């Protein structure tokens, strides 16, 4: 069995599963902190009740996110030891800084939050949730700067047969990483907002605790609207930077084969990678890809044909992921804007409420698609332009990777099933239990 392929599958399964839960942890912690602050400020019991209700959901989600994160840190060593040895001088420190500055804070304060209800004042307890939210986002920032370095390595020199740190500030102020942060964090908050809105809508449709769920809905709507707009704008800026530093990814995103001016966007395209063309094209919007890449309709965009065959990412997966992300990323600001206009008349718009119930999973689908685009689109590189994924795996037998891969699928599958079952059950039951 091919160790590289199996290890890629395993890492993909482990990260994608991990990232089903992380965005909700990031988003919901911010929203919970706002709810609890409202309670501490106004003394309105509704805010306390909703903090407790969504807090329980948060904790089930949180623990799955935490335990699946641990395996990721170690997989660089177990499955990607050639990579770790080559870039550890730069990459390893970012992970270590994440643990010491952020993960400790998050994990210690979550314990205080869960068990500290009777030991702390309302204000102090709300402050603890702010610490959890802050630490979670800080943690994401460090991880994204590590990923940003794999996407666009800066601040290093090749010395002693490996990449060594040369300029720490270049690494932490890497433009690619900063753009990932301002795009991914708001995207995560959108998911938190959609979960609260969706569950609130479910109960509003059933006239449960109308006043409370209206408050929860409006509060998270504000978060959702603001973050959808931010994420949309930063996504656009991120696209321009990708076009500049990762032309192969950009071309693959749009199944774009020929280098040309006024490059078009194709609403639907089925690429034929063998023959370097598209089997089927529909909805040609001339100049739009040029605009997307540079904000100039007439600019030249490099096509895949001008990128060596062994440096092209898989086109179909990259393109589907991109379209999914962009489609959903356009839906979020639209729907939240409509809701914001109608925010005073929510109960009179059952259709909108129903849409929000079914929209709960959409942000996480968009986020996963975004990660597929980022990671598959970076192939065949593990560090763009520096190290190929095929050179990065550990010198270990394929059989043991196959065994752990099956283990991951079974354990994570079960874990996900149980986690979602518990969350669904709690979300449906509503405040009776809280």
């Amino acid at each position, binding site marked *: 069995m091919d160790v590289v392929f199996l290890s890629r599958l395993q890492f993909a399964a482990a990260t994608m599963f991990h990232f089903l839960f992380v965005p909700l942890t990031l988003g919901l912690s911010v929203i919970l902190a706002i709810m609890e602050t409202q309670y501490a400020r106004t003394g309105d019991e509704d805010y306390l009740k909703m903090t407790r209700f969504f807090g329980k959901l948060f904790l089930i989600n949180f623990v799955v996110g935490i335990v699946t994160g641990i395996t990721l*840190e170690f997989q660089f060593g177990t499955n990607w030891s050639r990579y770790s040895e080559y870039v550890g001088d730069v990459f390893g*420190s970012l992970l270590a800084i994440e643990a010491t500055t952020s993960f400790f804070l998050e994990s210690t304060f979550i314990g205080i939050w869960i068990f500290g209800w009777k030991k702390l004042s309302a204000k102090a307890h709300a402050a603890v949730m702010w610490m959890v939210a802050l630490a979670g986002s800080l943690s994401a920032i460090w991880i994204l700067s590590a990923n940003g370095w794999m996407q666009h390595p800066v601040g290093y020199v090749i010395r002693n047969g490996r990449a060594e740190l040369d300029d720490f500030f270049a690494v932490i102020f890497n433009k690619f990483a900063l753009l990932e942060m301002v795009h991914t964090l708001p995207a995560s908050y959108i998911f938190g907002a959609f979960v609260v809105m969706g569950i609130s809508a479910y109960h509003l449709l059933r006239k449960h605790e109308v006043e409370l769920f209206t408050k929860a809905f409006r509060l998270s709507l504000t978060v959702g609207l603001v973050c959808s707009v931010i994420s949309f704008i930063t996504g656009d800026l991120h696209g321009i930077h990708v076009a500049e530093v990762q032309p192969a990814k950009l071309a693959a995103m749009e199944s774009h084969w020929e280098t040309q001016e006024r490059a078009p966007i194709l609403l639907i395209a089925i690429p034929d990678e063998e023959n370097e063309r598209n089997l089927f094209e529909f909805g040609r919007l001339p100049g739009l890809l040029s605009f997307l890449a540079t904000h100039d309709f007439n600019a030249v965009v490099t096509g895949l044909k001008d990128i060596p065959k062994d440096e092209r990412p898989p086109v179909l997966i990259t393109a589907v992921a991109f379209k999914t992300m962009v489609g959903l990323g356009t839906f979020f600001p639209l729907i939240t804007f409509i809701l914001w206009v109608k925010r005073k008349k929510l109960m009179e718009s059952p259709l909108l409420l129903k849409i929000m119930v079914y929209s709960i999973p959409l942000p996480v689908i968009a986020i996963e698609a975004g990660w597929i685009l980022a990671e598959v689109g970076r192939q065949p590189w593990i560090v763009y332009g520096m190290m190929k994924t095929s050179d990065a795996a550990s010198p270990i037998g394929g059989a043991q990777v196959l065994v752990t891969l099956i283990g991951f699928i079974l354990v994570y599958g079960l874990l996900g099933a149980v986690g979602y079952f518990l969350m669904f059950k709690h979300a449906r039951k509503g405040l009776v239990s809280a």
Partner: protein
Amino acid sequence: MALQSTWFFLWGLLWAVYFMTDGFDFGVGTLYPFLGKTDHEKKTMIASIGPVWDGNEVWLITAGGVTFAAFPAVYATMFSALYTPLMLILFALIIRGVSIEFRNQIESQAWKRVWDTCFFIGSSVPALLFGVAFANIFKGIPIDENGIFHGNLLTLLNPYGLLGGVEFLLLFMLHGALWLGLKTQGDLHDRAARTAEKLWPLVLVFTLVFVVASYFSTDLFVNYFAHPALFLVIIITVAAIFGIRVYLKKGAFVLAWAASSLTIVGATFFGVIGLFPTLFGSSMDAAYSLTAFNASSSPLTLKIMLGVVLVFIPLVIAYQVWAYSMFMGKITDEDLDHGEGY
């Protein structure tokens, strides 16, 4: 040289603190099916580690992260060579974490039994395997000049490795029993105290056997004979074990637990000092061994990371001590009734 040596001992310290903190969580989980007779007692045992286990586990992440940052070649070779045991540990830690959270979500005997079993396995397996892994690191592992591991899981389950596993398991069980003595009352407390008394002679005997076996199976003692003052570490560790006994007799569980913490830190440092400067030794040829001097990061990275660690680790210790002190004292019924699930 000084920078690399500093990092070597920081590396050892992080592992020691990890074993000291998550060690009692493992102990509580290992004793769980034996000491928790009723649902109430089981809940109490989980609640005793509830506020802190997650923060404790981060010491592992930090130890791993720091190995990656300061000694990338060690991180790469150690974790790929120890692939199977490390993956088993990680899977165990996953099911431990979720079992704590999931157990009390549904009031059903069958449901709880599943998560109770997971909690036990998720606690005892890492305790045992960390011992096996570290004993093998003390002994040296068959890696060649390219860091490729020539062996399998059974290579690691040699007598000395297994002895290390049992030693860790016993240390953590005693540590956990003392923690329960400290945190609980009534029948559970008395049972925990009796268990600690029964475990104590075993810990003493196995520790001494482990030290003697290390003399025959490893090169750890080379450093000790070169600098005899280092024998103090072994003496202090053994003294700490006797300290546990003294405080246990008096019913002073805080002090007994502190002595047990010192024992675990001492036992870890017994190995770390003996290893210096080797981080991951090859049993095939000493020339293939990874040391603090041939496997470290660049001086710039080591300096930046030292700055980070010197600023943030004391801060972490400060807020973790605050968290521990907030949840000091016995678990009461009121503590169990907070509606958050566990």
